[in-house]
C-alpha cells in the first residue's frame, strides 16, 4: 500500500539514512555468510590441527568485525530512528 504522495526521489540526507538502514539489514546476512564458511571447510578430509586453531582465530576475527561494524552503524541508526520515524514507515512500505 504505497502512499500516492510518496516522493519518487529523496533528498540526500534521507537517502543516506535509508542506505544506512539497508546496511544494517545486510550486516547479519554478511555475518551468516562468514560464519558458515568454517562449516563448508570441514568437509570429509580431517583438517590439520593448526588449521583448526586458525579456524578459532578466524571466527573470533569475524565476530570482532561484526561487532565493529554494528558499533559504527548503531549511532546513525538510533538517531535516524528518533528523527524521522514516519520516514521509516514509508521506507518500509515501499519495500
Amino acid at each position, binding site marked *: 500500500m504505497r502512499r500516492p504522495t510518496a516522493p519518487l526521489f529523496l533528498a540526500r540526507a534521507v537517502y543516506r539514512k535509508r542506505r544506512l*538502514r539497508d546496511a*544494517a*539489514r545486510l*550486516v*547479519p*546476512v554478511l*555475518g*551468516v555468510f562468514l*560464519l*558458515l564458511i*568454517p*562449516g*563448508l*571447510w*570441514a568437509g570429509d578430509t*580431517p*583438517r590439520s*590441527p*593448526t588449521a*583448526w*586453531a586458525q*579456524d*578459532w*582465530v578466524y*571466527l*573470533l576475527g569475524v*565476530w*570482532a568485525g*561484526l*561487532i*565493529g*561494524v*554494528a*558499533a559504527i552503524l*548503531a*549511532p546513525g*541508526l*538510533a538517531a535516524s*530512528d*528518533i528523527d524521522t*520515524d514516519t520516514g*521509516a*514507515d514509508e521506507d*518500509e512500505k515501499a519495500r
Partner: protein
Amino acid sequence: MPFNILVLSCLIYVFFLFLVAFVVERRASRGGVGFLRSPMVYTLSLSIYCTAWTFYGAVGYAARSGLEFLTIYLGPTLVFVGWWWILRKLVRIGRQQRVTSIADLISSRFGKSNLLGVVVTLIAVVASTPYIALQLQSISLSFGVFASDTPTGWALPNRDATALWVAVGLAAFTILFGTRTLDAKEQHHGIVTAIAVEAVVKLVALLAVGIFVVWGLAGGPAAMLDKIADFADPAQNPAWVLQPGRWSGLIFLSAAAVICLPRMFQVMVVECVDEGHLARASWAFPLYLFLMSLFILPIAVMGLEVMPADTNPDMLVLTLPLSQGQGGLAMLAFLGGFSSATSMVIVETIALATMLSNHVLMPLWLWARPGAALSGDLRGGVLTARRVSIVAVLALGLAYFRLSGGSAALAAIGLIAFAGMAQVLPALIGGIFWRGATKTGAVAGLVTGFVVWGYTLFLPSFGLDGVISAQVFQSGLFGLEWLRPRALFGTTDMDPLLHSIFWSLALNAGVFCAGSILSFPSPVERVQGAAFVNAFDAEAMADRLGWTHGQAEPEALLNMAQRILGQNTAISYFETQATAQGKAGFLPDLTPGFLAGLERRLAGSVGAATAHAMIAQHVGRTTVTVEDLMAVANEAAQIKEYSTQLEHQQDQLSRTARQFREVNEKLTQLSVQKDAFLSQISHELRTPMTSISAFSEILTEADLPTAKVADYGRIIHDEAARLTRLLDDLLDLSVLENGSVQLTLGLANLGQMIDRALAASSQIRPDRTFDIQRNYPSEAIFLRTDADRLVQVFINLISNARKYCDAAQPVLRIAVQQKAGRIVIDFIDNGTVISKQSQGLIFEKFARLTDHSRGGGAGGGAGLGLAICREVMANLGGTVTYLPGQKGAAFRVMLPLRLENPAV
C-alpha cells in the same frame, strides 16, 4: 580455602546484591533512576543470556566438542547486529502493547486469546524447569568442589540441602523485588540493576581466570595457540571435528532462543525503558558475549592438559585455579558462577511467574469467581498469584533437580531448553511480520512443535526406559517404524538434537502456515494483527479496535482500575484522560480511544487477555466486530449510492424545472403578446370604426350641406377602406402563418420585379425624392418563384424605407448577389440604424418602433408589414432579416434561385 569463608563471602555478596536492589528501588520510588537505566545497564542486564551454563558449561562443552560451543554465542550475535530486522520491532510492539511476557505477546497478537497464553506458558514452564534445575545444580556442584577440598571435615552434608537453601534465598529475593509493583511497565529497577552488577562480576571472574590461564599457565597467546593445535588433532580428538550440520543448526537454534527465551524476552522487551538503548546493545551485547567466550577454549585446553583425566570438565573454571593454588581466583570464579546462576533464576522466575499468574491463575480465579472483577481487591489478588507462581516455579525446578539427580551434562539440558522455547519462534515471527497469521494456525503450530519436541528430544533425554521405553526407541510408537523418537519418518542417521530441531520446527512452521491460511481470523485478531505488523505506523492503529459505548459507567471502570493500578495512579490516569477530552473532573467519556488505552494500561499489570476480559465484563461485549464495520461500510456505500442517485435525480429535476421555467416564460410572453395583439387589434379596429360610426351618425341628421355630406362620406369611405386593408392584412397573415397559402410559381425577372415594387411604392410620401441606387446587370436574373408575393415583400421593404428614412438626402441602395444557389437582395437606406434591442422585435406583429427616430404610426401602418414579409419569405423558402453593420437601416432578403416545390 576454608569452606566457611566461602559461605561467608557468598552471604556477604548476596547481602550486597540485596542492598543494591534496595537502594535502587528506593531511588526509583523517588524518580531518580536516570543514570541507572542507561544503555550500559540495559546491555549488562541482557547478559543473563550467559547463565551458569555459559560460565561452567561452556568450558565443558568446549572440552567435549571443540569449537561448537561458539554457536551458542554466534546466534545471538547475529540477532543483535541484525537488530533492525526483528528486535527493533519486538521492542516497539512490546512498548506499544505493554506486553508483560512472551506468552502475553503471542496471546495479544492472536486476538488476546488466553488459550494461546496458556499454551506458551506451558511450553515455557516445561522448557525452563530443567534449565532452572541446571542452575541449582551448578551452584550445588560448585559448593561441592570447595567442600571436597576441605580437610577440616566441614564437608557439605547434602547437595540437596544447598540447592534448597539457594532456592529459598532466590525465592525471597525474587518475591521481595519482583512483586513490589504490579505494572510491569513500572519495571523492576532493583532487580535489573542487581543483574547488571552480577553481569560485571561474572565477566570479570571469567576474564580473570582466562588471563591467568593464558599468561600464567600457558605462557602467552602464541603458546596457547600451539597447545590448542595439539589438542585439536582429529586423530586424538575426533569429537572436536566441526560438524557442518550441527554448526549451522546450533547457530540458528541459539539465534531463535535469544528471542524466545522467557528471561531474555523479559529483560530485552519488558524491562526496556528506552528503545534507543537497543542500538547501543546491538554491538555492546555481542561484545560482552565475545569477551565471555574469548577464554573458554584456552581454559578448556589447559584444564584438559593440567587436570587428571577424571575431572568433571564442567567445573574446570573452578578446579583449575584451585589446583594451581589460586584460592582467591577460585573464589572470584565461584562468585561469577554464583552470579550467573542466581541472576538467571531470578529473571526466569519473574518471567514465568508473570506468565503463570496472568494466563493461568488469574483467569482461573476470575472464572471461579466471576464477581471478582467487579468487587474485591484485585491488586492483592494479582500479587498473591504472582508470589505463589514464583514459589511454584522454583519448587518445580528444585523437584526436577532432585528427581534427575543432577547427573546430566549441563550443555545438553541447555540445548534441550533452547529447542523447546524455539517452538514459539514461528508464531512470534509470523505474528509480527505476517498479517495472515491466525490463532488457529498459531495454536496448531505451537502444539505440534511442542509435542514433536517433547517426543523426540525432551522425553528421550531421560534416557532409555526413562519415560519412553526402549522398545519404542527401537521400533517406534505403536510399533510404527517411522515414529521412532530418534528417527522420525525414517531419518535414521541424523544427529538427535538436529533431528529434533529440524522436525519440530519444520512441522511447527508448516502447520502454523497451513492453519493460518485455511482458517479465518476473528475480528480482534485481525485488528491486533494489523497493529502488530504495522507497529511503526501511527499509534492510532491500535485505537481503531475499540470498545464502543457500552453500558459501562466511567465510575465502575475507575473502581476497577483503582484495584489494579492503585488508587492514585488510576485517578490521575482518569483525570489526565478527562482533561485530554476537555472535560473537568475525574470521569472521562468512554470513547473507544480511552477504553483501548485503559485496556493497554491494565494489560501492563495483568496481561492482555485478562485485561480484555475485565473490561468486557464492565463494558459488555460490545466490541466493534469487523462484521459490524462491514455492515456500516455497506450501509455507507448504499447511502452514498442513493445520494448519488438523488443528486442525479435532482439534476434531472432542476433541468426539467429550468425547461419548465423557460416554457413558462415563453408562454407568459406569448400571453402578453396575445394580450398586446388583442388590445392592438381592437385599437386598430376601433379607431376607424369610431370615426365611421361618428360620421355616419352625423349623416343621419338632416339638413347637412351637400359639401359636408360628400366630405363625411369620403371620410367614412377612407376609414372603411383602411379597415378593410387591415382585415386583409390580418387575413393574409393568418393564411401565411398557417402555411395554407397557394403559391403560383413561375419564372420572373428580378429587375422587373424590383421595378414593379418601386413603381408601386412611389406613392408613399411622394413629396420626398429618393435616390435609388441599383446595379442593373446583377439584377438580370430569372427566378422561379411566386413573383406577386415576392414583389409584395419588396414593396413593403421599399415603402418602409420611404416612410421612415430620416436622412436629409435619402438614399436607397438595392444590391443583388448570388450565393450558392441563392439570391441575396439587400435594401439599404441611409437613415437611422435600428437599435439592437429593437432588431428582434421589428418582425413581430403590430411591432412599431416607439423611438422617435423611426417614429411609428406616422405612416399609419398597422405594424403588420414586416410580419407578413417574414411569413411570405418563409413560404418562399427564404428569409428576410435585418442586416446590421450598414450605415443605415438595411434588410436582407434571401431566397432560392429555383423554388421546386411550394413550401408547405
